[in-house]
C-alpha cells in the first residue's frame, strides 16, 4: 500500500479543485519562518509522517507568532511522533471554520464497490464513533459505472437538520471531488478528516490518501515510492529496493518486509536474528511458529512465490543477506508447483557473488529446503555448484516438515556457534 503524506494527498485534492489551506513543506526553522511570513500568521505546523492520530500524539502545533513557530518547528523536527522520526513539516495557514465533518471514499469488499462515508459529528476519534454509534456514519455505495453525483450526497443528508442547505451543498460537492481523486489516482482510500466548513467553502484540513500499489505503474507522474506494508512506519530503504524488483517485472513476486530492521526486538527478547525466505506466505508463518520457540527470530518476512524468475531470487537473496546482524539464513518452499530449479539458480548466483572466496558457501548457518515441483533438479544444482557441500549448509527435500527444518537449523546454528567459540 502506498500511503501518501498529508501534503502529497492535498496536492492531489488541489489538482481536482478541492480547497486546501495555503501551505509549504519545510525541513528547518528558517524555511518555516519564510513559509509563515509568506502565508501569514496564525499557522498550523504538522508533522509529515505516514500515520494518523498525529494531533493526539503531539504532531500538530499552532503558532501565532515567529517565536511560537520557532519553538514548534524545533521541537517537532527533533522528535518522534507515533514512533516515527519527523523529517518534514507542513506549515499551513490556520483556517477559521464554522464546523467540521468527516468524509471519505473507500472500497467496501462486502458490497464490491466504492462507498462514500460521512460523519457529521466531525472526525475526532472516528474509530470510536464507528464502534459506539455506528448509525452516526452515513454510507452511500457508489455504482462505479454510474459514478457519484452531488444529489446522491444531498439525498443522504436530506434528513440531517444540523447542516444548513448551503453546508449540505458544499459537503456534497466536496464528496464528489474526493470520489474523482479516488478514481483518477486508483486510490484505496481518500479521507479528509476533518473537512472544515467556512461561510462559503469546504476546505480539506487534512488528507489521507492510500493508493493501490498494484496501480502505481499507471501513475509514474506521482513518483511515489512504495514497498510492502510494514505497519505504520515508512518503508525502509531496503524495502524500497526490494519493491523495485517486482515493479519492473510481474513474473512471480518477492514480497519483502523487514520485521525487525534494527534487530531491537530480537535483542530485547534474547532471540537470534536470521534472514528468511519462503515460497508461500502460509509456509512462512508455520516456519515462524516452529523457529521462534527455538529461540530464533526472522528479521524479515519474504514470500518468493507465484513462480518468480531466477533473477528475482538472485536479487532478493542479496537483499536478505544484506541485513546486518543476521546469524543465519533459512529458505523453505511449500510443496508448490513453482519451478524450483529456477528458484535454486537465483539463490546460487547470489551466493556465488556474495561469497566468491568459497564458491558460494555461506559463512552463517544456512538451510535450503526445496519441496515441490523440480525439487530434484534444484537439489542437483545446489550439489553441482558446491553449495550443498558447504560446512554451514544443510539442504533438505520434500520429506522435510517445517518442524524438521526448524530442528535442523537449530542444530546447525549451535554447531556453528560452538565452532566460533560461543556455545550454548
Amino acid at each position, binding site marked *: 500500500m502506498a500511503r501518501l503524506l498529508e501534503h502529497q494527498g492535498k496536492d492531489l485534492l488541489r489538482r481536482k479543485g478541492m480547497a486546501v489551506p495555503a501551505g509549504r513543506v519545510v525541513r528547518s526553522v528558517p524555511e518555516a519562518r519564510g513559509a509563515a511570513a509568506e502565508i501569514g500568521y496564525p499557522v498550523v505546523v504538522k508533522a509529515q509522517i505516514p500515520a494518523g492520530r498525529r494531533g493526539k500524539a503531539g504532531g500538530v502545533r499552532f503558532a501565532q507568532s515567529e517565536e511560537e513557530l520557532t519553538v514548534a518547528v524545533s521541537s517537532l523536527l527533533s522528535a518522534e511522533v507515533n514512533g516515527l522520526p519527523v523529517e518534514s513539516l507542513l506549515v499551513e495557514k490556520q483556517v477559521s471554520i464554522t464546523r467540521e465533518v468527516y468524509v471519505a471514499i473507500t472500497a467496501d469488499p462486502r458490497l464490491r464497490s466504492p462507498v462514500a462515508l460521512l460523519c457529521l459529528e466531525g472526525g475526532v476519534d472516528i474509530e470510536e464513533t464507528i464502534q459506539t454509534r455506528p448509525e452516526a456514519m452515513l454510507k452511500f455505495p457508489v455504482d462505479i459505472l454510474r459514478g457519484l453525483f452531488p444529489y446522491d450526497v444531498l439525498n443522504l443528508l436530506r434528513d440531517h437538520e444540523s447542516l444548513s442547505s448551503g453546508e449540505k451543498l458544499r459537503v456534497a460537492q466536496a464528496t464528489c471531488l474526493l470520489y474523482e481523486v479516488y478514481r483518477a489516482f486508483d486510490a484505496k482510500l481518500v479521507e479528509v478528516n476533518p473537512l472544515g466548513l467556512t461561510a462559503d467553502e469546504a476546505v480539506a484540513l487534512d488528507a489521507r490518501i492510500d493508493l493501490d500499489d498494484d496501480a502505481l505503474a499507471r501513475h509514474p507522474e506521482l513518483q511515489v515510492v512504495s514497498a510492502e506494508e510494514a505497519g505504520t512506519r515508512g518503508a525502509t*530503504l531496503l524495502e524500497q*529496493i526490494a519493491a523495485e524488483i517486482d515493479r519492473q517485472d510481474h*513474473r512471480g513476486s518477492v514480497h519483502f518486509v523487514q520485521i525487525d530492521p534494527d534487530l531491537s526486538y530480537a535483542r530485547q527478547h534474547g532471540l537470534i536474528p536470521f534472514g528468511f525466505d519462503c515460497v508461500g506466505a502460509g509456509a512462512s508463518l508455520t516456519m515462524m511458529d516452529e523457529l521462534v520457540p527455538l529461540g530464533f527470530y526472522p528479521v524479515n518476512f519474504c514470500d518468493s512465490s507465484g513462480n518468480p524468475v*531466477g*533473477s*528475482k531470487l538472485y536479487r532478493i537473496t*542479496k537483499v536478505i543477506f544484506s541485513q546486518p546482524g543476521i546469524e543465519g539464513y533459512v529458505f523453505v518452499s511449500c510443496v508448490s508447483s513453482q519451478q524450483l*530449479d*529456477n528458484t535454486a539458480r537465483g539463490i546460487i*548466483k547470489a551466493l556465488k557473488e556474495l561469497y566468491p572466496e568459497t564458491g558460494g558457501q555461506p559463512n552463517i548457518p544456512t538451510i535450503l529446503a526445496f519441496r515441490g515441483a523440480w525439487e530434484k533438479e534444484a537439489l542437483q544444482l545446489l550439489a553441482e555448484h558446491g553449495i550443498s557441500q558447504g560446512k554451514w549448509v544443510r539442504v533438505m527435500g520434500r520429506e522435510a516438515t517445517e518442524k524438521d527444518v526448524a530442528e535442523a537449523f537449530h542444530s546447525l546454528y549451535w554447531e556453528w556457534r560452538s565452532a566460533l567459540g560461543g556455545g550454548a
Partner: protein
Amino acid sequence: MTGRVLTFRVRSGGTVSIDLDRCPSCTSKACVQVCQKQGGPLALDEAGRVPVLSMSLSEIARGGCVECLGCELDCALYGCQAVVIDLPLARFEEYLSGLAGSVVYKRGR
C-alpha cells in the same frame, strides 16, 4: 569482455553478455542446452559453433528470456565461462554504503 560479444537486455532490467570468442572451443554448448529447455532465445548458429538469438531483441526484452540464469551457471560449470549476466539492483550500493555495521558476507569467517 573483448572481441565478439552477444548482448541482450532482459525484462527485469539487466543484461546477458556472451563472449563469443570463447564459444568455438566449447564442447558442451551448455548455455544453449539449458536455454532451449526453458523455451528461451539462445540457439546455435548453422555451423553449430556459437550461440545466436532465435528471437528479436524486443521479444527477449518483453520476457522471451525467462531469466532462469541457467546459461551463466551451466557455462561456468560445463562450458568456457563465457556468459555474464548483470542484474542491477537500484540503490543497493547506496544502502550498503549507509550501513553502520558490516554485512555478514563481508566478515572474514
